[in-house]
């Protein structure tokens, strides 16, 4: 009975297709959750960086840096990106003393902000590319999730303090040299 095989074929295909849809729906869900977590993490690290910058600015009494840090901390969602960029520019202009604990905290928080931004950008891209898939659009699988958005800031990179003093030091035994520990 050829008609029977036809029915079996359709049932199998339907089963495969619904498994695919279930898998895709889960994937969309997971990618959006991750993009949201990454956004919260990025937000927290930028806050920490601004706070650390404010401490350094207070110590050094640099008014511009302090103002930039305050603006980044208080910025409304729409102005956040430009405020963070201003802060990055200000930070790249100051010279930090690696012996100062506040400066070390600032360098460490900046490094974490760089990482958080990188991961956030990647995860947002993954989520957006999942949203573009045919069945995700047709069946509106992403309708429960707000569209993730890139956080468009320049790399909040802070040059690391130089490892070597400008004047060559006299030969020292190797065990006196401490590795530059990351905080």
């Amino acid at each position, binding site marked *: 009975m050829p008609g029977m095989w036809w029915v079996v074929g359709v049932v199998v295909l339907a089963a495969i297709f619904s498994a695919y849809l279930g898998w895709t729906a889960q994937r969309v869900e997971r990618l959006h959750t991750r993009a949201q977590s990454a956004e919260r993490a990025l937000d927290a690290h930028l806050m920490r960086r601004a706070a650390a910058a404010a401490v350094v600015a207070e110590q050094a009494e640099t008014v511009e840096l302090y103002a930039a840090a305050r603006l980044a901390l208080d910025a409304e969602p729409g102005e956040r990106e430009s405020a963070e960029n201003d802060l990055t520019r200000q930070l790249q202009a100051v010279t930090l003393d690696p012996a100062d604990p506040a400066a070390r905290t600032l360098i460490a928080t900046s490094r974490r902000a760089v990482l*958080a931004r*990188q991961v*956030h950008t990647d995860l947002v891209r993954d989520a957006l590319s999942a949203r573009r898939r045919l069945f995700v659009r047709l069946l509106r699988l992403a309708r429960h999730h707000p569209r993730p958005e890139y956080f468009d800031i320049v790399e909040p990179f802070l040059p690391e303090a130089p490892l*070597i003093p400008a004047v060559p030091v006299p030969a020292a035994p190797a065990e006196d040299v401490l590795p*530059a520990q990351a905080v």
Partner: protein
Amino acid sequence: MRIGIVSPYSFDVPGGVQNHIMDLAEALLEIGHEVSVLAPADDDAEHPAYVVPAGRAVPLPYNGSVARISFGPLSTARVRRWLKQGEFDVLHVHEPFSPSLSFLAVLSARGPVVATFHTAMTRSRALAGLQNFLQPVMEKITARIAVSELARKVQVEHLGGGAVEIPNGVAVRKFASAAPLPGWPGDGGTLGFLGRFTEPRKGFPLLRTAYVTLARERPGLRLLVAGPGDRDELYDDIPKELHDRVEFLGLVSEPDKARMLRSVDVYVAPNTGGESFGMILTEAMAAGATIAASDLDAFRRVLDGGRAGALFPNGDQASLTRLLGELLDDPARRAGLASCARLAVGAFDWPSVANRVLEVYATAIEATDGRVFDDEWS
């Protein structure tokens, strides 16, 4: 933190990726984390306590060389059992797009996954063609690390997705504490070279010519060469009267490499190109050698713009010869460069590299709630 690391290649054969994983695992253990490394290996073979064998590896030609890897249903079962039992806070896979345990682990895991890319793969174009197919695997990886600028570029251009560049670490202590080979470096001065001397990009002919010129004026000057290659081929191009002042060690083990680097007055890196990082320079720096290197971008960066080692214009024979002569005649300058190198190499020391890797772990954990767990193939 409970960390699960997956090695794609067997620990039975030495290799760059394997060394990297072992040094990283040991550095993380020393900081106080719990580390388990899943690697292809025989159950009865000898390996460190933190290694979990995942079954015998089979040789498979991959990316221009033969890799010993595990792949298949049995490996998959082992990977999933390891994931289930490990309860890791973070999963760290190496070379996840090789057909290997790493790939299986990414496929089977859910949660914070960090991937390290070592090679700038030559078949990256084929990989780019598979991008749609690989996308579901790609997006399971939360954060990516590239060990060199080149590996990072391949990541960004062919696979999409950024990567943090964290260079290879160097086990500074192992190099700094190695004993020089008996009788070296001696009083007459010793130049050293490590690498495949027949490969043009390593620039050995530049050093050979410089050595021959200098050795004629300096009766005690010796040359120490290590690396793969044919002994006769090396000596054929060196004048007969200098043969007993040139020592060829052949391919050396890791401990012998450290001893070799401790046995030279000046380590010479005359490379004319093709270096993306300059691992050997960090090792020579850790060993306390004075370095003379061509001014490739990679070398300039590692040597802190020339303060941690002397640079000469790439490919310039006369400059190299002159520079080596000056260094050999000036012990104070050599000592100054070497002590700067010892400071600069701190940035590449494993404890500090491991701390940077830990920051990536933390970032991946923040972006993915919960632990790594065995995923039901979804």
